[in-house]
């Protein structure tokens, strides 16, 4: 039977490889009948904010905001996609932020001639986010709404910064994040770019200084106690998942290097939502104020 199968599969291969009539890269433009699978939480948030969501037929597993996105079919985790699953939704294009996998599946999608779209602007800063919103607004023909969103962001940022001025102190802040892929606690270093790149900028805008240098990497594992102990932060923030996982202040103080810090001695260890701190998007303006309220509390 195996032999028959081999022969049969060879025959089909010859057939299918002779079918090379599907090879011209499609261009992507928005149209009335467009059906999009959007694999990027930030793209989805902006699409919903722009009011362009009626063409979205599939989203990735990590997209959770706004709550309405849960009504849309999910195509799974962005690094473990399945071509068939995506194609079963009959998309006219897949919109993604270049963070998709596995590589074989990306290749399959290309070979099936499915249009792919990635926006050029990146939400790696406040201004970058506005550029991305404008770019997406132009693509989905929602230019006015995009301008409105940018204005709101600016206004909220200005209001937040006004509130930040009330605080006279400028605490040294260490941010500890639980990396779920590698199951370790990581400390976020100063500087933009890479994993946790948004954190530095948000802490700065909220009137704080990053306690730990990044040494060229966004996050580093919290395994050497010296890193944190030497930085001696005034405030330690734990992102929500890692904070809840440890549960109590005693457990948090047991993390390497935490106990000796000013933050631990004065009880300035707080929980913060990861998507408030490590995020740039339409909600960033108001988030500055939220972060400031946490790091300046006495």
């Amino acid at each position, binding site marked *: 039977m195996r032999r028959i199968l081999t022969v049969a599969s060879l025959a089909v291969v010859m057939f299918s490889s002779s079918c090379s009539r599907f090879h011209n890269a499609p261009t992507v433009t928005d149209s009335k009948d467009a059906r999009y699978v959007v694999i990027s939480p930030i793209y989805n948030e902006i699409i919903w904010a722009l009011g362009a969501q009626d063409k979205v037929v599939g989203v990735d597993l990590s997209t959770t905001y706004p709550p309405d996105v849960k009504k849309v079919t999910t195509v*799974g985790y962005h690094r473990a996609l399945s071509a068939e699953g995506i194609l079963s939704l009959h998309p006219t294009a897949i919109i993604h932020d270049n963070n998709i996998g596995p590589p074989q599946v990306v290749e399959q999608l290309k070979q099936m001639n499915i249009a792919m779209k990635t926006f050029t602007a990146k939400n790696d800063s406040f201004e970058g986010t506005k550029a991305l919103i404008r770019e997406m607004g132009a693509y989905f023909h929602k230019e006015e709404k995009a301008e409105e969103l940018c204005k709101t962001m600016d206004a909220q940022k200005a209001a937040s910064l006004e509130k930040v001025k009330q605080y006279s102190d400028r605490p040294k802040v260490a941010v500890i994040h639980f990396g779920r892929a590698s199951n370790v606690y990581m400390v976020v270093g100063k500087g933009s770019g890479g994993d946790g790149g948004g954190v530095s900028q948000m802490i700065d805008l909220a009137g704080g200084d990053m306690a730990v240098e990044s040494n060229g990497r966004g996050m580093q594992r919290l395994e050497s106690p010296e890193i944190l102990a030497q930085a001696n932060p005034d405030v330690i923030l734990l992102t929500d998942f890692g904070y809840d996982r440890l549960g109590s202040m005693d457990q948090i103080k047991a993390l390497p290097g935490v106990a000796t810090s000013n933050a631990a001695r004065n009880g300035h260890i707080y929980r913060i939502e990861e998507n408030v701190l490590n995020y740039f998007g339409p909600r960033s303006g108001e988030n500055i104020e939220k972060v400031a309220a946490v790091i300046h509390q006495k």
Partner: protein
Amino acid sequence: MTKQHGTRRGLLVVLAFATLIVLAASIRFGAIDFSVADIRHALTSLIPGQPEPTLDQRIFLELRLPRAILCLFVGASLGVGGTLMQALFRNPIVEPGLVGTSSGAAFGSAMFFVLGGVLHLSASIWTLPIAACIGGITSTYLVFLLAKSREDGRASIVMLLLTGLAVNALFMSAIGFLSYIARDPQARSITFWSLGTLSGANWKSVVIVSISTTTGTLLALRFAKQLNALMIGEEEATYLGVNVNRLKWIVLSANVVIVAIATAFTGVISFVGLIVPHILRMLGGADNRYLIVGSALLGATLLSLADLIARLSLRPAELPIGIVTSAVGVPIFITLLRRRQYVF
């Protein structure tokens, strides 16, 4: 003896039918369900002169069909690999990846994920499988080399077994190091690869894996009788006229080729290679001729079943197949184990 012979033949026929039934289900059901008419239309669209296939038909022809067939061959590879290794090592806990093959392949893929970007390797359909295959074969060769005795150039079974364990540990630590220096998305790619998936199947991978599996299985069948003789012991087999040293290299090489190539295209799929030979031994005894054919069929059936579950449980999203193989395999295995007085 003849009665048992008849039982085995019956079992193999039943297994062949089971394989066909699961294959049919695997072809029909998934993110999209295809009816028999859909399948017929898709196949006729290949005939020159017919209208171009629709998107759904292309999904069937270019994604579903190669995946279902690849799944059969990969399952068969793992089953046969497990049988060969358990027969050679005369040890029930041996998996096909034991001599370093799967940890080496995983190391190759981890190298690709972490360093691929730095070295500007383009992510074509070949680079990842080639990296994994090179890793698998290199690590196995390392085991061979280190297990060889300095005096007579032979490798005893115990040396191979222990060297295999040691080299596996070495490569696992190398993978650990690569995950440590990896960025978050790379670390996740490594994790998912080590859970296996058949979602990347295409016709080219089907051709390659079908050739390696068929060759490996036929080769194994030729040496099945000698493996039977080996079961009573190395020395005894030698008295029976078996060139044990040659048999070792042949069986190990056949195993490496089929397992490294299958793993290269799908990632590490655990447990199938371990339980398939045991299930067959419980049902029909330990004749390696029966076990090799049976493990090809049962491996194919179990893996197809697992893939079907992986595709249907969260559709249109999928589970990594490694999660399913254990979840499906363990209950079957334990049930059989408890029902019978099983001695390896």
